[in-house]
Structure formats: C-alpha cells, structure tokens
C-alpha cells in the first residue's frame, strides 16, 4: 500500500517535471528584443507590453520593447527578418501584416520568412455606424447610398479598403472610402461625424453597449459577439472576410524548442483570467485565441496566399 502510494507520488512528481520541462528546457540566450508594430499607448501596444511584463515576472526572461511602427507592420517584419533567430528577437504584429500587407509591399519577404509563435486574440471587426443615423444593418446603408446619399466609409487598412470596394461593386453603389491609422481613429471619426460608417476592430464595444453605436455588419467569417444578427460579408456579396489575429512571430528558422517555449509561455499568460492583460483581451478583443505551431504557420501561409486572391478580385 505504502509502496504503491510512493510509486504514485514518484510518478506524479515525474509527470510534473516532464510537463514543465518543455518550458524549462529552453531559456533565451540573452535579453529579448520585442518589436511592437503598434503606436505606443494603444490597446495593442499595451497588450504586447503587459504580456512581456508577465513573462518577465513568471519566467525571468528579460524583454526590451521597441516600437517599429508604420506600413501596416511591414517595417517591423523587415527589421525582424534581419535579426538573430535564436529567440533574442521577436515581434508582435497582426496576421494581416504577414498576409496582405507583406504581399503588397513587395519587399522580397513572404510569410515563410517568419516563425509563428502564437496568436493572442482575434478581432471583433465590424462595420460600425452611429445609432442616431437610424441604420440598423449595412443593408440600410447600401439602400441610402442607392438613393444618392454620399456615404463616407472609414477604413484602417488597404485590405479593408479593398473589401469596401468589393462591397460597392457587388451592390452597385459608391462609397467615399477614407483611410485612417488604426481602428481607434476610425471610431473617433465616426463619433465626430467626419465619416458615416467605418471598420472598427474592438474599441467600439463600449459605444455599442451604451447604444450610441451600432454594428452594421461583421467583417469576419463568423457573427459578432455583441451583435450576432449583423450580416456577414458574404451576405453583402463579398466573398472575402477580414479574420485576423494579433500574432507574435520570430525570424525564419527559430529552433523548434524556442518556438514551442514562446508559444506555451504566451498562451499561459493570455489564458490566465486573473491577469490584467487577459482582462483587456476579454473586454476589447472578445477573448483569447491561441493558435500555435504548424497550425499557425499554415494560417500565416494561407493569409499570404489568400491576399493574392483578394488583390486579383479587386483588380478585375
């Protein structure tokens, strides 16, 4: 009896050791440069910095955050591709950076030039309008445009502008697509009346809950959390969606154990409901989504290939 208990204890301890060892196996050979593709102080930047802080606290890894903004994350990817792939340099961007943006930048890089570490969260990407305008869904906006109203459509990336263009084509209307830097800027423009509707990826939550804003359509392949009845892109005649995630990547050819260690470490932070960063992710981005390993590499590759299809559809 005693013997079997002892055996069980040994087995349990051994199991624990094995379970934790994959994370403990790998430690970064030095301080880690964390490139951040977002403006300092925004929701995405805060997320990156908080994750780094948590990893410093729990694993003792040292991070040096640095802003490399601009060109929809392509500047970051260019910088990252020239850095050592031993785990001392990683970057946080969005999947769109490695897809549409990297492809249209024509910078001699593809998604295969990077090692996917982990996604952290998806977006609640919606077409948002003001409740006061009386539109319930995007169909109403299209109807208004057909009646001759000039619709100003705020967009925060060329890919979304392309999708707005496809929506015009499919419905025989014309929007004035106005470019902004980031979803928060689009939201401000909607609130200020500078644009009528626009793509926003999360910060609209408060305004929607308060009833000031309305989500007119989902730009994702699936319904929105707050407005599940909002039409999808396919209902509006667009065959593409704007699914996307925040993603940590490293340069090409990172050691498998480093890739795994980062993936596990990031996942353990964003899935811990007590942490501040997880609370932000839940509130603004509708909860954590951690895609890793080969599945992530495939996702990034598909995003890069799929971007070509969208560009072709627009150019036709």
């Amino acid at each position, binding site marked *: 009896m005693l013997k079997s208990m002892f055996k069980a204890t040994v087995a349990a301890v051994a199991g624990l050791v094995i379970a934790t060892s994959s994370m403990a196996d790998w430690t970064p050979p030095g301080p880690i440069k964390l490139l951040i593709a977002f403006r*300092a102080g925004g929701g995405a930047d805060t997320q990156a910095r908080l994750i780094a802080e948590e990893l410093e606290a729990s694993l003792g890894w040292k991070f040096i955050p*640095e802003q490399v903004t*601009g060109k929809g994350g392509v500047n970051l990817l260019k*910088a990252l591709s020239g850095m050592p792939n031993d785990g001392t340099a990683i970057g946080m961007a969005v999947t769109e950076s490695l897809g549409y943006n990297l492809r*249209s930048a024509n910078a001699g890089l593809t998604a295969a030039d990077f090692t996917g570490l982990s996604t952290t969260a998806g977006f609640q990407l919606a077409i948002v309008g003001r409740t006061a305008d009386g539109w319930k869904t995007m169909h109403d906006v299209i109807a208004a445009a057909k009646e001759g109203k000039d619709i100003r459509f705020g967009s925060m990336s060329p890919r979304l502008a392309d999708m707005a263009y496809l929506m015009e084509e499919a419905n025989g209307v*014309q929007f004035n697509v106005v470019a902004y*830097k980031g979803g928060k800027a689009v939201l401000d423009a909607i609130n200020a009346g*500078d644009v009528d509707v626009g793509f926003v990826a999360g910060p609209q939550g408060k305004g929607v809950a308060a*009833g000031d804003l309305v989500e007119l359509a989902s730009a994702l392949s699936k319904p929105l959390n707050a407005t599940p009845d909002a039409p999808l892109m396919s209902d509006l005649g667009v065959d593409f969606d704007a699914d996307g995630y925040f993603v940590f990547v490293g340069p090409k050819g990172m050691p498998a154990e480093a890739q795994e260690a980062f993936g596990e470490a990031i996942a353990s932070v964003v899935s811990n409901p007590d942490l501040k960063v997880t609370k932000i992710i839940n509130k603004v981005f509708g909860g954590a989504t951690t895609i890793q390993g080969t599945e992530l590499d495939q996702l990034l590759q598909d995003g890069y290939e799929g971007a070509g299809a969208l560009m072709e559809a627009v150019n036709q």
Partner: protein
Amino acid sequence: MEVLDYIWLGVQAVFLGPEAFSVLGLPISITILMVLAGFLVGIMVGATPGLAGPVAMAISLPILISAFGYSEDALLPVLGFLIGVMKGATIGGAVPAILFNTPGTPDAYMTTLDGYPMTQRGQAKKALRIAHFSSASGDTFSDVVLIVCAPFLAIIVEAYLDLPEKTALFILSLSFIAAVIGGSPAKGLISTGLGLLAVYIGTGEDFYPRLSFGTEQLASGFPIASAVLGVLVIGAVFKGLEELWLEKRTSGNIAVVQDSGDQRLHVGDIKRLFPFIARSAFVGTAIGALPGIGSTLAATLGYTLGKSRHKKNKEDSDPNFGEGAPEGIAATEAANSSVSGANLIPVLSLGIPGNAAAVFLILAAESIGGFNPGPAVFKFTVDEVNPELVIVFGLFTTMFIANGLNWTIGGIFMRSMGIMIRIPKHILLPIVLLLALTAIYVQETNMAAIGFTLAFGVLGYFMRTLAISPLPFVIAFILGDKLEQSARQAFAATGGDPFFLFTSPVALVFMLLSVGVIIYATRKPKANS
C-alpha cells in the same frame, strides 16, 4: 456625466492618482510631486543663462517616458512635470536679468532694462519680488483664459469644420508660423519646408517607404525625438560651443551690489503696478493664443505699451522706463508669463503647437499615447467617461497646482537662484549635449537614432548661423503627418474632388488667409522703412 463631473474626475486623477508615498496616512500622488519637481527644475534652468525651459523639457521627456512607461497612468505625471518646467522657467528667466543684466531666457531681455538699474540702486530683492508677483499674476490669468476658451473653441471647430476645412486650417497655421517666427517669411518658409520634407521621409500610405532610397534606416522615417531634440537642443549646443570658441572670455568677476533700503512689496506698490500687469496680461494672453508668436514679442509689446502709459501718468520723481522703473519689470514679466497658458489653447483645441514648450507637451502626449490633443478631446460624452477629457481637466489641475507653488514657494526659491549664473558655459554645454544624446538613446535604443540626432543638430547649427529660426521646422515636423492625413481624408471624403480646399467658403477663406499672411509679412518691412 456633466461638465462638473469631468472637472471633478480630472482633479481626482491628479490627487488620487498613483501614489508616491504617504505622509501620516495621507497619500501624496506622484503627479503632484512631479509638478513640484518640474517647477523647481524650471526655475533653475530658467535662471541659468544658456539654458531654457524647452531644453530641460526636451532632455527630461525621454527619460521620464522610460521611467513611467506607456500606460495612461504616465500621462499626468509626465505632462505635470513638463508644465512645471514651463512655468518655473518663466519666472526663473528674470533672475539673472535683474541681478546680472543677463537674461536667463530670451523673453527676459526687457526685464534687464529696468531690473538691473534697480539692482544697481540696491533694490535687487524688491525687483525680484515685483518680477515674481507680475509673472505669477500674468500666468494665472492666462490659465483662466485657457480653461474658459479651449473647450468652446474645440467644440466650435468640431461642429463647424469638416475634413477639408481642417486641412485648410493646418495649412493656415503653418503659413502663419512661417510668416511670424524669425522675422523673415522667406526664412520661415524654408524652415517649414525643410520640416515637412524631413517628416515625409519613409511615411505615407503606400507600402513602399517613400524618399528612403531603399535603405532600411530611412524606411521607418526619422524618430520624432531625434528631429526635435537635434534641431532645437543639439543645434543650440553646437552654436553655443562656436560662440564660446569665438569670444574671448570676459573676465569672470561679477559685481555684487549690497542691498539697501526697503525690499518689501507693499499693497501700495501692487496698486500702482496693477494697471501695468493687467494690460500686459491681456496682451500676452492674446498673443499666446495665436500659434507661433511667442513670449519675446509679448514681452516687447507689453513693455512698449507700459512705457507710453508710464510717460503720461508718472510723477517727476519716479524713474523712467529703462532707468529702473518697477513698472517696466511688471509690464515685461506679466506679458511674457501670460503667454504660456494661452499657448495651450491651440494645442488642446486644435492639436497645433504654438511654441517650443507646446511642442514638447504634444510630443509627450503622442509618445505615451492615450491622449491625442485636438478637438475630439473635448467631447463631453454623457453615458460613458471620455478619458481624454479627464486628462485635460487633470492637466488644468496640474497648472493650478503649479500656480499655487508659484505663489507660495516660487518667490523664495527664485530669489536664491542668483548662483546659477556662475555655472560656466564650457562645462554646461557638453553636459547638455551628453544628456540630450543619452535621452535619445534611452527612448529609441538604437544607434541610428543618435546619428540622426547629430545630423539634425548640424542642420540646426546651420539654420542658426543663417538666422533661420528652427521652430517652424519643428512645428512643421510635428504637423506634417496630421496635415497629410487630413488632406488625404478630405480628398477621399469629397469623392476625389481635387479642389476640395477651395469648394467650401470656410476652407477658401483659410486658404486665402494663408497666402495673405505671407504677403503681408513680406511687405511690412518696406512699409516701415
């Protein structure tokens, strides 16, 4: 959420923000501490000839950001410190002007005219008291005007200006700044143009980084801190080193005059000075509200107006302006101090910086994030809290804390600052250079940024050598991105109308004014001669 709720939240954000330590169980917020620190630093740098508020703001900003991080909690302590420096430097500048006939800041030059003669008569302390009283009065008045005007201006802008009009307004302010700073509109335009050219490298909507010659260093553009610190601070240091090298050092003996007679400031004195202070405060505030004109002109105007009034009203036994008249100090100091508050009107309501101090406030807000000065800030949302508006009222609170410090301990601290003139420039300048480069490296953490900073320093040096003011360069660098974005947005929103700047009457008026102000500034000297 009512207006009063927002004011209250702003006050709370300052007093109940992250606490530094507690005294007898009473928490002292870090913001208050930072305002105090900034205020004391400001008085010291203001009292040091060769340094000025903007230099201290430039060097401390990157260091503060790396200390406080990029969270929203960092905004008020950092901005509070900068506001403290801004206010402290204004009163500090009068100290060497009065005691040693050397203005600590350029806008204190007029203070030497009457301050130093008073010192020679043994009235140094009294002169300092007059300077402090006038300065603090002008400053407080200006802040009140700011708090009353900025929200209304912002709401008007937001309600009546559409994207094309906003673009035209940016063009108008750049043109105005080019026309009024530095005396020559042509030089102002060169400075503005260089600033726009520099900011447009590597930026833009296209995925290809423009004007970068395919190099990776230029692809993400110049770091804003490199450009601003390089041209403003490093350029000034290079110029200062050159001057030091050229001038034979004048003998270091500083004459000390013993104080004699009554040094106190009586109610009767205040009554006599009040009309001068009031008039100058109005002048300074009005000038401060216009972007780009600055405190030196305000001081000159305040002094000139005071002089003509004094001539009419003075008794025969009173000293004339320029011979040690207390009214001269009061008129100058009230005018140059009342610029600083009003200068934040265009910053907060339009996002347009009017002087170097405002540049650093905008820079701080942009670097930390979460607060984008501009008309959108003043949205009094009812259902949910507008955090940016809370920051604005927090900012107003820090200004009043700084004013409170100014009225209470400012005078005492200021009167002990005579010693700062003894710091030799050949030691001061290298320290400033080292600190500025360190500050850049702390924020940017790469050597390319240091290289850019030094290059901008050389540019700043040549601009000073050619008497081109670097301030339009810096303001254009800060506004360039906003200008391009709003122009692109206006173009897209009007359905691709190439004449979007000329179709609405308001935009058209702004555009005509932009051309008009340059023409007017060019013709003025001829009319005078």
